[in-house]
């Protein structure tokens, strides 16, 4: 019996054990050239600083937020490295996400108020032992009055924001079916072409050895028929050969129709294969 499926509906996918890491999110600081109050042009860049408690550097797993009319997002983190211990100098900022697009068309509403998740494997660099996070927001379109991010939360490693506990095989799509091989009943073209080569050599030999001795109507076509029947090819092919074998005691096929030397292209047509596979002839 498979376990009862949970209700993976809105917001219910987050189990109670996951908590966002404690952090202080400062309000966005707008970057603008000139005086903020008197300048008429609207700023297009804002910065949100997130400070983590100094003694608890965070191994970042996920950043979750609600967009509010921000078009592009860049994320920089400050990490604590073992070589930094003891040094009071400023730690380096590293960019872990550059110009991530939140609104594909910044003049219009698409994506403007959606919820987003950034996972650690989407980020450009390693985000362990993070001590501070800086989010740089860009909105190049002048039509919006304000832009920011809301409900910002950082999740530490080991706690996923999304857990679905139904059988894992359900999450994987079945592999795409290969189209059926319709040529299953047909012999391998390579094998056939080598055998036809042998056939051709036989015919050349016979032609070269034209003796006076009568072999009656036991001619090449009958040999072809014997050859085909011997190889076990489908009887339909055999029916095309035939009535030249008047000396028919040994005639395997036993029909009275005339023999037909099948050309390679005719053979190919019968087997629905391209005739250029018969390279030898």
């Amino acid at each position, binding site marked *: 019996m498979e376990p009862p*499926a949970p*209700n*993976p*509906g*809105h*917001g*219910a*996918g*987050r189990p109670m054990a996951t908590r966002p890491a404690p952090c202080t999110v400062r309000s966005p600081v707008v970057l603008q050239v000139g005086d903020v109050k008197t300048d008429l042009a609207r700023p297009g860049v804002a910065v949100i600083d997130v400070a983590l408690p100094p003694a608890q550097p965070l191994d970042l797993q996920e950043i*979750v937020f*609600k967009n*509010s*009319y921000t078009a592009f997002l860049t994320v920089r983190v400050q990490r604590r490295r073992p070589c930094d211990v003891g040094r009071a100098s400023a730690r380096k900022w590293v960019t872990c996400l550059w110009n991530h697009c939140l609104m594909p*068309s910044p*003049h*219009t*509403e*698409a*994506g*403007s*108020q*959606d*919820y*987003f*998740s950034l*996972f650690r494997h*989407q980020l450009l660099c390693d985000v362990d032992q993070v001590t501070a996070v800086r989010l740089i927001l860009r909105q190049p379109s*002048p*039509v*919006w*009055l*304000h832009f920011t991010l809301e*409900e910002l939360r950082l999740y530490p490693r080991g706690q996923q*924001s*999304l857990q*679905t506990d*139904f059988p894992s095989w*359900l*999450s994987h*799509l079945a592999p795409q079916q290969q189209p059926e091989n319709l040529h299953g009943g047909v012999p391998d073209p390579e094998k056939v072409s080598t055998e036809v080569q042998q056939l051709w050599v036989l015919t050349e030999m016979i032609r070269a050895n034209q003796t006076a001795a009568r072999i009656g109507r036991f001619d090449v076509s009958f040999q072809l028929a014997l050859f085909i029947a011997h190889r076990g090819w489908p009887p339909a092919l055999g029916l095309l050969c035939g009535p030249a074998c008047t000396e028919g005691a040994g005639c395997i096929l036993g029909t009275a129709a005339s023999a037909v030397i099948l050309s390679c292209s005719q053979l190919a047509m019968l087997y629905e294969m391209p005739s250029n596979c018969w390279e030898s002839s």
Partner: protein
Amino acid sequence: MLEQDTGLSLAIAQIVQRLKGSSLHSQLERQARGSLHKPEIKLESLKEDIKDFLKTSGWEKRLQNAVYSELNVFPSPCHPAAPPEHMKEPLVYMRKAQGSWEKRILKSLNSMCTELSIPLARKRPIGEQKELFNKWNEMGTDEPDLSLFRPVYAPKDFLEVLMNLRNPNYENGDQPSFRNHLGLIQVPLKVKDIPELKDYFSELGLNTGQLGIDDSTQVPPELFENEHVRVGQTVLTEQDSAAAQQYVRQGCPTALRAELWALILNISNQPEDILYYEQLKSNVIQHDLLVDSLIYKDVKLTASNDDYYFVFEDYLYQVLLCFSRDTSVLEHFSYNSATPPKSYIRGKLGMEEYAVFYPPNGVIPFHGFSMYVAPLCFLYHEPSKLYQIFREMYVRFFFRLHSISSHPSGIVSLCLLFETLLQTHLPQLFYHLREIGAQPLRISFKWMVRAFSGYLATDQLLLLWDRILGYNSLEILAVLAAAVFAFRAVNLMEVTSLAAAEAVLADLSTLKVMPLLQIFLFATVT
């Protein structure tokens, strides 16, 4: 946004959850259990053998159709942090606008109720129940006094609300600038332009055969029509929903249309569906709702006066009265920006335990609502199947035409798409109409809200609705509206008032839909 893998897992989980409770699930289980008696099912390879059995007996196809239907109807799952309102409508100001619009409708309904002192719902006395049961197939002969009733709202009231829709974070200055749209809609939604529409509607192109163009009498049927009908019959024998949806983009042959639409909407007239319809019918007989009178009034005003649809009056009552009582329609409110109105039992206002949705399906009919059902009466004659088709079409498409939302098929996006297309490709016409006070949207709004039902000839309308089903989107309505304006542009340039413009565009019944669409999308020099 969810990244791809987690999004996929969540989508699969949701579809599994929804299909688990359905009758298809129990039928599949029963079939699988029954197959255990068959000799080809071996214990060592049980899973594979049962899978093969389900494939060959056609059950896998039915499951595929059900999954495809779920994918088409429900939107892709939201981020788990998003609240349920976010799936209904992501933009906060639109949710607020829809909320206040609903309050207005309810106020209007309540005031009518108090004025006429009619209860919202009452149980019918036994005599009346018997009478209604006997007259079920001829309710049109009933002539109740409906003069005091008025429709709750008409499309032009809704247009006023949409015109006043504003995003508080958008710079809506009084000075005309590039930020203000020249049309009536001032909301900056993303709409497709002609190159994107050409790509989206590529099957309507000049090089592809279409029913509505390539089946006219001058074209010999061997060129396109015969082959198309043959392919349609193959699709029906295969019973594949996705293939049917692709096929229908080039139009449906009239003989196959009813079955193809049922296949796309995944409606099979099972005994339990017929039973459900009979149950709704008994609900109608037992209880009388105020909404019923609104439906009667609407049918009498619109469908009964229409040359094509007056014969179906009785069918319309049978479908719409049952529709108002169908609580399974409430499920679609999880992705509809509207919220069903609640009403309280007399004397218990405000107490949640005594709250019910009114009407039971949560949808208050407006003036012209019955026109959504009327064209379907040409295709389906059995009331329970007609009912199911209408219900499915409503919860997939028609609800978007009268609720405020930012969805690309929502009425706001359709209006904006129409105005943008007209402005970009017929700028002189647009400017002229605007100058004379005849904003084009004022004329075309009523066409789009009704999905052109009642304005086009029925065969043309059904060809249009074929494409709505095929592309699973209503954007073609806006494109057709712009194409109609383009077609009558010469006459429209000469008018000098809104009334004259309306007169030019009053009669659309002679128009052929597919040539208009093709010319506008693919053959107009820009």
